[in-house]
């Protein structure tokens, strides 16, 4: 069960945020921006303080009521998925979301890279995918 998706750009700014479940608390847009920026900072710190050389940053945070998965692309964009605590493997979902992103956002001439995403088709395809995953 996927609760929400955040896309963070290279500089740490929030580029896209969507909730897919009604049980989530409604935050103000500023709070979403702060969340994204904070995670970006923590991600950078964790990649540096890891005892092993050349580690990636945080990939998964497990809490009592949710799990947060982070996928960092080769270009520095981060895809954050907040899911139910029972969710074990989100790799195929991440890949599908990244596919949809590279299709409907990157190939859109009206989208400026690293800027907030305003694309109808991206929203629709994402909604269809998440509906399929979350089930009826």
């Amino acid at each position, binding site marked *: 069960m996927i609760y929400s998706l955040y896309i963070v750009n290279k500089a740490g700014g929030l580029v896209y945020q969507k909730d897919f479940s009604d049980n989530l608390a409604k935050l103000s847009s500023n709070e979403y921006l702060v969340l994204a920026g904070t995670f970006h900072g923590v991600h950078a710190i964790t990649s540096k303080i890891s005892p092993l050389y050349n580690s990636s940053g945080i990939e998964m945070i497990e809490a009592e009521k949710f799990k947060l998965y982070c996928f960092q692309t080769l270009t520095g964009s981060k895809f954050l998925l907040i899911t139910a605590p029972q969710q074990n493997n989100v790799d195929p979902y991440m890949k599908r979301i990244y596919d949809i992103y590279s299709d*409907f956002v990157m*190939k859109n*001439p*009206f989208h400026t890279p690293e800027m907030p995403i305003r694309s109808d*088709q991206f929203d629709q395809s994402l909604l269809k995918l998440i509906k399929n995953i979350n089930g009826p």
Partner: protein
Amino acid sequence: MSDSVNTPRLSTNSSIYTEQRVARGKTILDRNLNKTRGAEVSLSAQSFLFSEMLQYTQKRVNGIQDLERKLNEFGYRVGTRMLELLTWREKVAKRETRVLGVLYFIHNVVWRSLFGKQADSLEKSTENEDEYMISDNDPILTRYISVPKELSQLNCNAFVAGIVEACLDGYQFPARVTAHTVPIDGFPQRTTILIKLDKEVLQREELLK
């Protein structure tokens, strides 16, 4: 006087150059025209190229009409070359002289060569004698393009409209061709290419009846 010593050397250099070119073998002009028949191009590559064409044009125009006109011009250049190639490949003895024949050619041959399938419908307008419509339920060229609300009037298939206009002009059926979004159930991206034939074409058609 020293020129007479230099010029023979110059001409020998240039003749060596031309000999090398001929010896190198086939140029693109010698290739078989049927070699790339049925060849396919990655949709992603085409989408990126088209996206860049759009961004390039956007910086150099002011207004949606201007943008569509520029895209139409791009398509026109593609259309003239496509028409020559496709008519040669078809190897049909007679040239189309009737409106319906030309429209069928565009509906079948041109669409199949561009998009791998026939266009979805060919209609004649009931209101105007000189208007015909070719529709595509899911135009692949603009599949990944989401037009922002400020430009909702823009239809990027103006490029395809340009290709159609060039084909019509080449067949001696001058017309004004535009692209319009006409969504229906199940096909929100449906695009109609509206063809408005010139008066002379209708007069000629009357004579041929």
